[in-house]
């Protein structure tokens, strides 16, 4: 493993609870489908904002359940 670049220590200062609540509030009143779409848009927006391949690769690996990925993923 090379130097990790994904920040996994606390990085939200004193805003953590606010931001978590903000995220929950954004989903309130949405159907499951609308919620899923919100999450997808959020991922895309944040992915572009981060713009760092190594960080994103690590984040994807950290988020994915530990089953191996199918080999034909392109």
């Amino acid at each position, binding site marked *: 493993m090379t130097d990790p670049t994904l920040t996994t220590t606390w990085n939200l200062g004193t805003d953590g609870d606010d931001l978590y609540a903000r995220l929950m509030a954004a989903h309130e009143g949405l159907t499951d489908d609308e919620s899923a779409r919100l999450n*997808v848009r959020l991922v895309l927006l944040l992915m572009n904002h981060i713009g760092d391949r190594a960080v994103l690769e690590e984040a994807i690996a950290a988020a994915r359940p530990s089953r191996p990925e199918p080999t034909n993923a392109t």
Partner: protein
Amino acid sequence: MPRYRSPVFPFVRPPELDGRAGRRWPVAIVGAGPVGLAAAIDLALAGIASVVIDESNVVSTGSRAICWSKRTLEIFDRLGVGDRMVAKGVTWKVGRLFHRDREVYAFDLLPEPGHKRPAFINLQQYYVEEYLIDRARDFPDLIELRFMSRVTDAGQDPDCAWVDVETPEGKYRLAADYVIACDGVRSTVRRSLGLDFIGRAFEERFLITDVEMAVEFPSERWFWFEPPFHDGQSALLHKQPDNIYRIDLQLGSGADPEEERRPERVIPRIRAMVGERPFEVDWISVYSFQCRRLARFVHDRVIFAGDSAHIVSPFGARGGNGGIQDVDNLCWKLATVLKGEGPPALLETYNTERVHGADENILNSARATSFMTPKSRMEHLFRDEVLALASTHPFARQLVNSGRLSRPCSLAGFSLGTAETSDLGGTMVPGAPCLDAPVRGANGEDGWLLDHLGGSFIALGFGALASTPPGVRGLTVGGSGDLQDPQGLLAARYDGAPSVVYLIRPDQHVAARFREPTVAEISRALARAQGSSNA
């Protein structure tokens, strides 16, 4: 009723059928598609004779490939057919993407001037093949075309490769130093050698049609996701010569190809797209696509090129264009080996370099096809939301993938290139395909750099060029040299300054570059580029 009528090429009885031993061919090419024909011409230009064997007696049925890339046109220029292709073809460089009824994104594939050839032309595959056949006929002593001759089996012995050929008048076996298998996706040669493709297949079916309409849509590639006029996921409209338009309509994975091919099904679909304009259907086909390749393209004396070696979905126009780049890469190496100027190991670099090219094409084509055919609900959501974000957030437009169109393949980092020791800037690193630039010749005539490169090794020197090793043609820029650089684009694109020298391969790729090289340095780079392992 198809508008184009192919010339019909007669069967000519070969000497082998009368018990006379035919000549021993340096190269036998199986398949007179674009790839096999281009290979015969490229070999002939290098003085190597070949026989081309094809089961058919007409050119491609239906237009199939239509988009030919800038790099292919540059290779066609080298083969002496570029002008005819471009004169007939529809030149284009802009693609527009629509989502439902709104435009989300337009891309320009060649935003800068100063290149001889456009980003793309559209030209039906039957014209490409016809023009290549005409060109092949310019070499009666070096190219023999044998039509109505089907290869049924192929193999090799230590000193030759052979094919069994079946004709209307009997069968014979033909031996050659090398066989190039250009017999397409269902390659008999591949099967004879017991080889198989690796990769993936997509279930989705696409209706691909050519429609004749007397309208003037712009010469652009128009692609829709969730088109308002079609109940499938995507549609494409692309102009060809003769008022023919390519229309692709995505049908889904459950579509019945036989049913969908029926004109009664097809015509209403096109009507919904083009409205009340009169049109005539020229060609109808239903395809599903694969993105796969052979593990290796070189099997001793049998070498695979084009669709026999690799196959991609057409979104990105990488099939035919990839095949022409195979030819560009292979033929000078094969000629070098056949003339004894380089070791057979040089052919192994065709394998590594073009497997790399095929992988690039497969990756891009598979990604575009995946974007068009989401295979899970979540993939579908991501696709939809990329399209939705694209209307308000410009960054998302570049994630929309309707095909990443064929680009020349860089061979940077491969073994024939000499590692860079100079501090030269720009993109023309060893392995890069040479960029074009406007030049002026010794007699003041305007021309293009790429028309002066290729065919042999060339030392391109800015300012004076001391001397060049045997086998290398010198070409000087500036001063009293061979070429002038009237717009300064050549120097800009090659970071050219007095004493900079590029060694350029016969296929117009950079082999090495230096500042003030000695002849010995150029010789070493040449030996390396010709596959000599101790260079």
